[in-house]
């Protein structure tokens, strides 16, 4: 296989003659390009981009701040989609029991859900990566200790750990991020340890050590960047998982406070009225959540295919 590559490369160089190709692009840019060329990947990226932009610009897109009680009119409570308010505004997605415009509430809910999901995934990523790299590079007892903690952690259902933690810590955005980080870091640690163990044995790591580069440089400049592809895939999927876990916790009423509705809390609010025929209060936030998670998973799936070493080059 290596031989074929060698000949292919030589042929390319000969075809190009003495002409030097333009500055080669970074592999990461090539990956992004390949994701965008894949129809499924493009769809995922579009969905995620639209939802992230909607979340970021929520105060400008939504005409009502659902957290500001002075803007809410109790008289507008539980209006069906498309109905008009007392002040003549059309609620395209209806309103909830507090008289919140559901469209605005979904935008703000997306904001909370995305922030919680991305932030907890990012913190878990850093902690998990540090733990996994340490385990792989140090080996021996340190490795055993860290990985047994990971095993124990992963043997509990994440929802159970989160429930216990939130019962102890109480409600709040910061608390739920802590709970999500605690339930998620182990996945990152296990993923990165696996790939770091492989990379550590490769000759370029030996070469770096032979060049008397310090361990910190060997780990962070050589091993870590080469472990990133599987980590990126896991991180993408885990963001989606964190968002749905947060929604679950909020739905159960132990996640975020009622004054800061995330998507999960909006669904929970509407759940009480499902039986009375007011389907829209739960349905639309639910669809938004579904769309977001499907979008992230589509991106993750495509990334996994693109980054698969067996499909590269």
């Amino acid at each position, binding site marked *: 296989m*290596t*031989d074929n*590559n*060698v000949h292919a*490369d*030589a042929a390319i*160089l000969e075809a190009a003659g003495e002409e*030097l*190709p333009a*500055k*080669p692009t970074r*592999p990461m840019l090539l990956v992004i390009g390949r994701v965008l060329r894949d129809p499924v990947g493009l769809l995922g990226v579009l969905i995620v981009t639209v939802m992230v932009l909607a979340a970021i610009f929520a105060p400008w897109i939504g005409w009502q701040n659902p957290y500001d009680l002075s803007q809410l009119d109790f008289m507008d409570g539980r209006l069906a989609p498309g109905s008009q308010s007392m002040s003549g505004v059309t609620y395209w997605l209806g309103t909830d029991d507090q008289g919140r415009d559901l469209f605005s509430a979904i935008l703000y809910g997306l904001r909370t859900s995305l922030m919680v999901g991305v932030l907890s995934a990012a913190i878990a990523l850093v902690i998990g990566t540090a733990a996994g790299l340490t385990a792989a590079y140090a080996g021996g007892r340190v490795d*055993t200790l860290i990985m047994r903690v990971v095993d124990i952690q992963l043997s509990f259902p994440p929802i159970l750990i989160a429930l216990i933690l939130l019962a102890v810590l109480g409600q709040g955005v910061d608390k739920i991020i802590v709970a999500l980080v605690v339930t998620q870091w182990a996945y990152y640690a296990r993923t990165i340890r696996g790939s770091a163990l492989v990379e550590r044995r*490769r*000759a*370029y790591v*030996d*070469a*770096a*050590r*032979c*060049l*008397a*580069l310090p361990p910190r*440089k060997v780990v962070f*400049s*050589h091993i870590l*960047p*080469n472990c990133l592809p599987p980590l990126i895939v896991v991180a993408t999927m885990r963001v989606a998982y964190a968002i749905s876990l947060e929604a679950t916790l909020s739905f159960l009423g132990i996640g975020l406070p009622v004054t800061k509705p995330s998507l999960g809390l909006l669904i929970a609010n509407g759940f009480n009225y499902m039986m009375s025929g007011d389907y829209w209060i739960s349905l639309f936030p639910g669809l938004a959540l579904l769309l977001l998670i499907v979008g992230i998973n589509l991106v993750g799936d495509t990334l996994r295919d693109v980054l698969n070493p067996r499909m590269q*080059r």
Partner: protein
Amino acid sequence: MSAALITAEGISRRFAKHPDLAARIANKLGAHHASRVVHAVDDVSLSVNEGEVVGLVGESGCGKSTIGRIIAGIDSPSDGRILYRGEDMAKAEGARARHIALKIQMIFQDPLDSLNPRYRMGEIVREAPRYHRVAPARELEAHVDSVLERVGLDPRTKDRFPHQFSGGQRQRIGIARALAVNPELIVCDESVASLDVSIQAQIINLFMRLRRELGLSYIFISHDIGVVRHISDRVVVMYLGRVVEEAPVEELFAHANHPYTQALLREVPRLDNRHISFTPLSGEIASPLAPPPGCHFHPRCPFAMDVCKRVRPALLEIAPGHKSACHLNTEPAAAAAEA
């Protein structure tokens, strides 16, 4: 004879498989999982003089790569010490230790595997000299370019990634990376084994040119006797972690003393012996986990005597600069009787 640049004294390297927790519990309950120890390298001494090329040959699994990695500082010996110009490398500290470490560099077998796929070629060569301040910051780029030109790479290709080079070019990048820190000894671990024959010749010629231009010494580890004969001044033959014979290259090829060396040399394909039927060495190379007692080679040796099964033969000088570890040299009477 010039002074020894590197001396390895009584180097051993054992790889132990320690019983894990499950095995320890099983042992407590009466199972017998012994911890298994491999003597990859067993009390090996060798030295490299300034400007000398030492060939290290032997079958796969004989510990030649482990020796190379220990001398290059990638692995550390279980016993024994490595002296750089008489100074114990393990005792050096801080800046001095780094200085000595840089004097010994290694070229690897698989050129693509030895290059970080996420570094551009220039960065691969530049990284170590920049970190160790081999050249002043202003002259760093000029230093890198001069090294690249010395190994026959176009400095204009510095922006490319390793996978965009051919196999021979990749090996040149590995050589440039080593040369960029001004080494004195280069350990070549099967450095040409994965290349086409024509490319092999180019790389070997490059090694020899660098030796002339920079006064480099080499430890050339290979299973290819022909290549080793071509470039070495002195050859060390290893079998199952031990040195069995050591001699200047012409002496070794003319008067191989150890039965293993004789068998090894018989198998070298040559134009003038194409009609000779090969008599392959009988038996398999023994498992390093359970090496035979006495002389490791005795189960395959056509001249094996009783003493070979019990006593490890010492590496004795049988001619000036020619050492061999064989009981036949010390007990000629017994050998004659056996023969």
